[in-house]
């Protein structure tokens, strides 16, 4: 196996050395339960407090608006289900988009079975939600709008501030799944009129299994887990202290480096996109050309299928991902690619490459060279390509 090139940073990232070092003492040295009364616990409590401040600072929030969870999916589930349950006497209509993460979509589908009504907003060819369509969709019984800050597959960034403005004007709570933007794109919860925001630690070089739900002050949200006073009684259970400390450190570092890191990743990303589009025919870029996550490149290569592509890339040591049906065990390709209007056969040939601060131009050059060979080889094997060449 050749030296690994990791280009799946939207799936998860490598924990940074500084984050790991910050976490280590909380396993064997400062291990007390932060809820205890003795001074030993006080040190732990203090560390959790610092982490909470750091997590809040990244989105211009107050520390008491941050609730630690076990990750992005938990935060999404909590936000949507608790709003629905808490406001069911006010209304039972929820608005979301067709391209949300399954943590949102499946929660909405669950609520539909419970008698709620959900409007799934269309997106345009670049994956943007129409704010005009959103305005029309709001009804007197609408209790929640949930639209992701940026799409995890195609990287398109949504007009969150505008959506927040509409939600606030119409008196509807606004939740955003910010798992892909938190620590990567500047966000300010209050300025963007966000009421609830989900984020996850392992997307920003923090540990897995820890996330946050931002709950704006004065927003009443039913508890997720009963059984203790932790997280102001809303999410019981002994705190995952090392994870929380790691989250805090990752958030602090992400805040410090964001501008420079985003500029570098954007430049590398554009270099990758330009080379792939110029050097591999019958290829399209998915998602918005400019309003996209700094590290996200997402392509469809016509006449080939994504899983085959991933296996052959893997044989060259390159880690990517695909929205092809075969990688998910379903027959349909990614709901996101279908929502932006791609026909099935094109959607099957997708490839997502997502960068981190650690990736280099040399790695991308090697990836493009490998892609050219692999795509060519799979097309030689493809009856669709044969037909297209003869036509």
């Amino acid at each position, binding site marked *: 196996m050749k030296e690994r090139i990791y280009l799946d940073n939207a799936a998860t990232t490598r924990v940074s050395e500084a984050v790991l070092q910050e976490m280590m003492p909380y396993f064997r040295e400062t291990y007390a339960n932060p809820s205890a009364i003795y001074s030993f616990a006080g040190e732990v409590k203090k560390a959790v407090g610092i982490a909470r401040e750091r997590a809040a600072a990244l989105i211009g929030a107050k520390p008491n608006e941050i609730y630690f969870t076990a990750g992005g999916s938990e935060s999404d589930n909590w936000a949507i289900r608790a709003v629905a349950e808490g406001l069911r006497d006010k209304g039972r209509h929820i608005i979301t988009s067709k391209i949300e993460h399954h943590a949102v979509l499946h929660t909405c589908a669950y609520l539909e079975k419970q008698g709620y009504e959900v409007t799934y907003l269309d997106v345009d060819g670049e994956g943007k939600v129409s704010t005009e369509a959103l305005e029309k969709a709001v009804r007197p019984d609408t209790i929640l709008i949930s639209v992701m800050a940026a799409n995890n597959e195609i990287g398109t960034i949504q007009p969150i501030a505008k959506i927040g403005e509409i939600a606030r004007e119409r008196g509807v709570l606004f939740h955003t799944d910010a798992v892909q933007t938190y620590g990567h794109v500047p966000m300010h919860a209050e300025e963007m009129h966000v009421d609830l925001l989900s984020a996850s630690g392992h997307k920003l070089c923090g540990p897995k299994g820890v996330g946050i739900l931002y709950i704006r002050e004065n927003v009443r949200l039913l508890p997720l887990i009963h059984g203790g006073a932790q997280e102001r009684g809303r999410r019981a259970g002994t705190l995952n202290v090392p994870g929380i400390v790691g989250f805090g450190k990752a958030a602090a570092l992400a805040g410090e480096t964001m501008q420079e890191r985003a500029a570098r990743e954007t430049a590398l990303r554009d270099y990758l996109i330009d080379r792939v589009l110029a050097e591999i025919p019958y290829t399209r870029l998915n998602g918005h050309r400019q309003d996209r996550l700094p590290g996200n490149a997402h392509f469809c290569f016509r006449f080939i*299928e994504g899983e085959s592509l991933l296996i052959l890339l893997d044989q060259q040591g390159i880690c990517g991902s695909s929205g092809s049906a075969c990688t998910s065990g379903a027959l349909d*390709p990614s709901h996101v690619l279908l929502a932006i209007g791609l026909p099935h056969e094109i959607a099957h040939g997708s490839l997502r490459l997502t960068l981190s601060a650690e990736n280099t131009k040399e790695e991308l050059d090697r990836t493009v060279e490998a892609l050219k060979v692999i795509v060519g080889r799979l097309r030689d094997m493809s*009856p669709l390509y044969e037909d297209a060449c003869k036509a």
Partner: protein
Amino acid sequence: MYSEKVMDHFTNPRNMGEIENPSGVGTVGNAKCGDIMRMYLDVDETGVIRDVKFKTFGCGAAVATSSMATELVKGKTVEEALQVTNQAVMEALDGLPPVKVHCSLLAEEAIHAALWDYAKKRGIVIEGLKEPAADISETAAPHAPS
């Protein structure tokens, strides 16, 4: 996820390509489900498959089952080729993940489609060969996860 044999046949597919003026050619599957297989046959006067080639759009299992299917029918008579089942293809590959079983059905169907075309061109009837479905996505559905 895949057996070594599947990986081998995917990475080094046997009999991949086209046959000019084939005795029979069949294409099955659909792009909607992400699998299309095309099988070319070169059958001699005595009814023996002298050569076989395939082209496949699909996942690793789709390519591997196509490749294995060509190996299993090459050198056989058309009657013998008709007896090659998806089970035989799967066994020869040391198994497939449950969600990929439909790929082996597609490979069997591709052989049948090519044989059907051959029989039609020759104006003969191959005992036991039914007109293949152009698209097996419906029959494959029970094997797909819910």
